């Protein structure tokens, strides 16, 4: 029993990271109907910016929560700017083109970021300093959670709640909803569609960067290709929950994380990467719109 509960804690930790990345996919898809394949690489950049920020702030020597927060925020802000630049330079010029052009552009940006990362940071893995001193907190029933895992879960959920508040209760959030329904109508209502799209990219990139730093906190190995697999899996998580749906991305991410950990713990680690795609196939067969998605009839 305690083993199962411990696996559940591990799964939720890993799943909340997927959820954070999946949010970016889902938001961009909701607004642009574009699958931003470069999103996983923004997550990688977030981790690297976090690495350099923690060196800059000397967060590895006598770690304290304030410095750690500073590292997280620096990474989120700079990644948001990178997200803005990517949107402006790569996606905006092809926005009026067929959807396939945008998709291929996204793959191109992804390759550019990965190989640019190799050029900039080197192909060998780098190691994230311990910016939070590790401590174990017993939860009873033989289950322990480390303060790092707790931080990952807490920060992820705080960001998700903040995002929900942003989308539902602020002016810019309402504008985002309007744009996701209809660009033209939103523009006629006086909403600057371009700015809302850019803003969405910035928020999504900031969340991915947060995921990057949170993962690096726990598993300190970071390298330029680290975003490919988590990016793909988070995309599957977004589809699982219903792409374009924010609570769906969170639930999809958690399911994905828990499923991976359970498969590794009870079956075999070789199935770890396979389970994501098994889930994808199952959901596409059973409920193609995703758990929370509404099936929309395609107008022909």
């Amino acid at each position: 029993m305690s083993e199962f509960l411990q696996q559940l804690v591990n799964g939720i930790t890993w799943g909340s990271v997927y959820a954070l990345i999946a949010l970016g996919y889902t938001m961009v898809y909701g607004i642009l109907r574009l699958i931003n394949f470069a999103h996983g690489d923004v997550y990688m950049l977030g981790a690297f910016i976090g690495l350099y920020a923690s060196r800059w702030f000397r967060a590895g020597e006598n770690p304290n929560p304030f410095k750690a927060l500073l590292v997280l925020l620096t990474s989120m802000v700079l990644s948001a700017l990178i997200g803005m630049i990517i949107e402006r330079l790569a996606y905006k010029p092809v926005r009026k083109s067929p959807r396939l052009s945008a998709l291929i552009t996204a793959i191109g940006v992804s390759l550019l970021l990965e190989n640019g990362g190799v050029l900039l940071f080197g192909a060998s893995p780098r190691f994230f300093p311990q910016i939070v001193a590790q401590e174990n907190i017993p939860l009873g029933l033989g289950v322990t959670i480390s303060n790092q895992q707790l931080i990952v879960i807490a920060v992820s959920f705080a960001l998700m709640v903040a995002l929900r508040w942003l989308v539902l209760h602020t002016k810019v959030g309402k504008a985002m909803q309007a744009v996701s329904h209809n660009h033209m109508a939103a523009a006629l209502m006086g909403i600057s569609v371009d700015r809302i799209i850019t803003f969405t990219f910035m928020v999504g990139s900031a969340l991915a960067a947060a995921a990057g730093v949170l993962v690096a906190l726990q598993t300190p190995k970071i390298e330029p290709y680290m975003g490919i697999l988590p990016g793909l899996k988070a995309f599957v998580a977004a589809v699982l929950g219903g792409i374009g749906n924010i609570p769906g991305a969170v639930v999809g991410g958690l399911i994905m994380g828990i499923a991976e950990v359970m498969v590794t713990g009870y079956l075999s680690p070789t199935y770890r990467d396979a389970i994501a795609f098994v889930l994808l196939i199952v959901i596409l067969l059973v409920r193609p719109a995703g758990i929370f998605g509404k099936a929309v009839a395609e107008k022909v």
Partner: protein
Amino acid sequence: MKLRHGLLFTAALGAVLFAAGCAGSKDELVIGEYGSLTGGDATFGLSTKLGVEVAMAELLTSKQGKIGGLPVRVVVEDDQGQAAEAATAVQKLINQDNVIAVIGEVASSRSLAAAPICQSNAVPMISPSSTNPKVTQVGDFIFRMCFLDDFQGRSVAQFATQNLGLKRIAILKDVKSDYSVGLTEYFSAALKEMGGTVVVEQAYTAGDQDFSAQLTAIKAKNPEAIYIPGYYTEAGLIGRKARELGINVPLLGSDGWESAQLLEIGGDALNGAYYTNHWALDMPEPKLQAFLKTVREKTSGTDPDAIAGLAYDAANVLFGCLEKLAADDPATFKALASSKAGTPERKTATTKLRDLIAQTKDYAGVTGTITLDANRNASKPLVVLEIKGGKKVFNTSINP
């Protein structure tokens, strides 16, 4: 006009090719080296390169970098830590760079990918530090400078049961690594023989980020120690994760842990861990201490790891054999340098070189005395290192 340009171009190309051909036929001894200069276990390749560089630098000061009057040149190829790339790298070394012998690899899976190519081209390959028995079984052109995994796995079992008094041991292995899978087999068999039990066997794949699921499953079985035969990056990450999950039993490792980065990755989590290695830096051996001094001067104070020491020994054994060939059989030696890859003259010459390497006996290296047996393996004592207060300290040594 256009035609004239075309002719000019062809003529220029011809001239360049001719010049290149001339440059290639200048007599020299080209030695190939392949290793992971980048990737998840990059210190393996970089340390091997360092060891060979030190040997080259010494050859340069003692003999102007020449053996038998011919200059020696080392060509290094990066295999990015991937078996498929290792095969490509060795192909290139043999066919394009025209090497007479190859030094590499550290990881057994990559040595196993490259060895058949060296064997079929009759180019001697010396692996400084691949410990899996299968490596030298590929053929009679494949040699190694280190001990084997059957001995290494047995030694860990012996150390755990006799020196530490631990019987219930869990294993966490890399399923895709020949090295890790091999060690797991030898260790399990030896442990059972010595009255211990493997309580649980879990697996990971190199490059994995998260080990919490496997370690939680291990924790549930309450082992007295965890054996992690694998490479340093994963060992460090696993060590940290284990402590995070409240697992405080000793961790046992293998010579794949030997890297300066091990402690950088694992940090305090690895204190109290033990691993088997080819040397301990605090051993008083004069040859080892002299090598340490040279490397510290070259790298401004950084200590080499045993991987560098083994590569240094491999290069020196090879240089010694070339010297001997030049002295004993100048005709073959000359043919070795002047012939092209794939020609019968080259094959006769490399076979002579191979025979000389196979005769290596009582060579005093920095990693111990090297004598190659009939299976082209070195039999050497092994050292158990303990990680104590962020330092690797000699604990005991075990003889084969």
